[in-house]
C-alpha cells in the first residue's frame, strides 16, 4: 500500500518570543498512513495531535525532520488541493452555506457547473441541503461542523484529514458522519481521523495510533490492539460463579478471564467440576482501556517500547 501521509522523525518545538521557554509538542515522531484506510489518531489534550495535523497541512514548519503528504513535502499546495481538511474549531467566513462551500471549492480550482454540483452534493451528504441558503452565522455549532465537513469534501479529496469531526454533533449526525467515512473508504479514499470519541474510533478505524506528550506510544491494527494474548476469556456452562474469581454469570453461562499461562489449569478445573467449556478466546479490551493504560502518568515511558 502506498503511503499518503508520512512523518519522518518530526520534532516541533514552540518557543516563546525571546526563546527562553520552549515546549516540545512533537518529539521524533514517525508515522505512516496507508492509502485506503481509516486511521485513528488518538491522544489526550496537549499530546501534539493538532500540531502534527497542522504540520502535515503546511500551517507550520517542523523544527526537525520531514514529512510527505500525498508524495509531496509538507506545505505543497498541489498536495493540499487533493486533501479535505476539517479543523478542530471550525471557522468559516459568515455567508450563506452554499456560496460558502462553492467559495472553498473554487479555491481548490473547481468551477462552473461541476462546482455547483459538487457543492450541492456535499451539502446533501452532510444533511444541510435545506439550510443551504441560510447564513452560517445563524447556525448551531453542530451545523457549523457539518458545513466544515461539506467544504472539506467538496473537492472529492483523496485524503480526508479530520480533527474532531463529530465533537459537536448529536448522535444522529454522528452516525451520519460515520457512514460518510465508511462510504469514503469504500470509494478508495483515505481518512486520517483525530478524535477523543474512542468508541467511534473503535467502530470505524482500521488502524490507530496513540500519541502522548509528543511521542507515539502505541500503534497497530485496531482489531489486534483490542485483543490481548496475555489473558484469555473462558465461557463455561454447568459451573458455579463462586468457583472462579472475577467470574460473572448470565443465562446459565459463566464468563471469566485468566492469565494465558493459567488457561490449561482453568479449563481442567471446569471439566473437573463437571462443567462444559463453551468458548476460549483472547480477552477483548476496549480502546478506552488501552488509551488509559498508555497515557497514564508513567505510561509514556513504559509503553514507548511497545510501538
Amino acid at each position, binding site marked *: 500500500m502506498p503511503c499518503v501521509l508520512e512523518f519522518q522523525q518530526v520534532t516541533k518545538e514552540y518557543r516563546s518570543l525571546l526563546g527562553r521557554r520552549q515546549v516540545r509538542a512533537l518529539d521524533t515522531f514517525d508515522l505512516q498512513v496507508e492509502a485506503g484506510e481509516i486511521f485513528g489518531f488518538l491522544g489526550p489534550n496537549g499530546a501534539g495531535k493538532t500540531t502534527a495535523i497542522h504540520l502535515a497541512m503546511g*500551517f507550520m514548519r517542523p523544527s526537525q525532520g520531514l514529512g510527505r503528504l500525498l508524495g509531496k513535502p509538507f506545505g505543497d499546495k498541489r498536495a493540499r488541493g487533493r486533501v479535505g481538511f476539517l479543523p478542530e474549531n471550525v*471557522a468559516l467566513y459568515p455567508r450563506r452555506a452554499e456560496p460558502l462551500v462553492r467559495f472553498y471549492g473554487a479555491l481548490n480550482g473547481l468551477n462552473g457547473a461541476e462546482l455547483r454540483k459538487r457543492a450541492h452534493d456535499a451539502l446533501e451528504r452532510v444533511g444541510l441541503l435545506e439550510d443551504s441558503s441560510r447564513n452560517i452565522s445563524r447556525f448551531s455549532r453542530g451545523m457549523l461542523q457539518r458545513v*466544515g465537513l461539506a467544504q472539506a469534501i467538496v473537492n472529492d479529496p483523496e485524503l480526508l484529514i479530520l480533527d474532531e469531526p463529530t465533537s459537536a454533533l448529536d448522535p444522529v449526525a454522528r452516525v451520519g458522519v460515520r457512514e460518510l467515512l465508511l462510504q469514503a473508504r469504500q470509494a478508495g479514499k483515505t481518512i486520517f481521523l483525530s478524535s477523543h470519541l474512542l468508541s467511534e474510533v473503535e467502530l470505524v478505524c482500521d488502524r490507530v495510533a496513540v500519541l502522548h506528550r509528543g511521542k507515539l506510544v502505541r500503534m497497530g491494527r485496531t482489531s489486534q490492539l483490542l485483543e490481548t494474548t496475555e489473558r484469555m476469556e473462558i465461557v463455561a456452562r454447568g459451573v458455579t460463579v463462586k468457583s472462579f474469581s472475577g467470574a460473572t454469570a448470565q443465562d446459565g453461562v459463566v464468563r471469566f478471564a485468566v492469565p494465558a499461562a493459567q488457561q490449561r489449569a482453568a479449563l481442567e478445573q471446569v471439566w473437573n467440576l463437571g462443567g462444559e467449556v463453551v468458548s476460549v478466546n483472547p480477552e477483548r479490551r476496549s480502546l478506552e482501556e488501552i488509551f488509559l493504560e498508555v497515557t497514564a502518568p508513567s505510561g509514556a515511558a513504559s509503553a514507548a517500547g511497545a510501538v
Partner: protein
Amino acid sequence: MKSVLLIAINFVREQRWPILVLLLWVLLLAFLGLATDAARQREDLLFIFKQVAVYVVAFSVFFGSSAIYNDRRSRRILSVLSKAVGRQQYLSGLVIGITLACAIYCFALGITGSWTLGEAGFQISEVWFLMLCLIAACALAGTVALMFSTFLNPFFAAGATAAVMGIPALLSYTSGSAHLAYIVPVYALAATVLNSSFNSHEPMTWVPIALAVAETLVFWLLSARIFSYVDIAVSVE
C-alpha cells in the same frame, strides 16, 4: 490567479461595512458641498476634498495591518490555506483586496469630486490622475503594512508602516531635497494631491506612481518571503 481574485473579493466583502461607511461619508460631504454656495466657498471645498482624499492612505494602512491578524485570530486562515492556495497567493489576494477597497473609495471620491469641484469652477481634468496617485499610494502603504503584520501585531505594524512612510518624507523636508521623498513615495503621492490647485497647466508626473508600483512588488515579495516562515496556526493573542 483565480484563487488570488477570490481572496481579494472575499477581503472586500469582509470589509464591506467599513467601506460602506466611508462611501456614505464621501457622499454626505459631496451633498454638503453641492448644498453650499460652491462658487463663493471654492477654496474651502478644495481643501476638504484634498483632506478627505488623503485619508484613504490611512485606511489602507488600517486594512493592511489588520488583514492577516483578523484571519489568524478567527482561524479562518486555516480554511483558506488548507486548499490549493500558496501563502504567496494568499498575500497577493490581500494586496489586491486592500487596493480594491481603497480604489472603490477613490472612485466614489473621483465622481463626487468631479461634481462638486466642477460646480465650483475648478478644472476637473486632473481629478482622475490624482485618484490614480492615491490608489498607487494605497497599494504601497497597504503592502508595507501587510509585510509588517506578518510578524507584528496590527498596532505595531501600523506604527512601523508610518515610520517607513514618514522617514523619507522627514528627510525630504529637513534636507529640502524633493527626491528623498521618492524613496518610499507614499508621501510624494499624497503631496501631489495636497499641493494640487486644479490648474490645468500643472505638470503631471508619473514617476512616483511608477515607483510606487515597483516598490509594491518589492514589499510584496519581501512579505511573501517572511510569511513563508511564519507558523500561522500558532495563536496570535
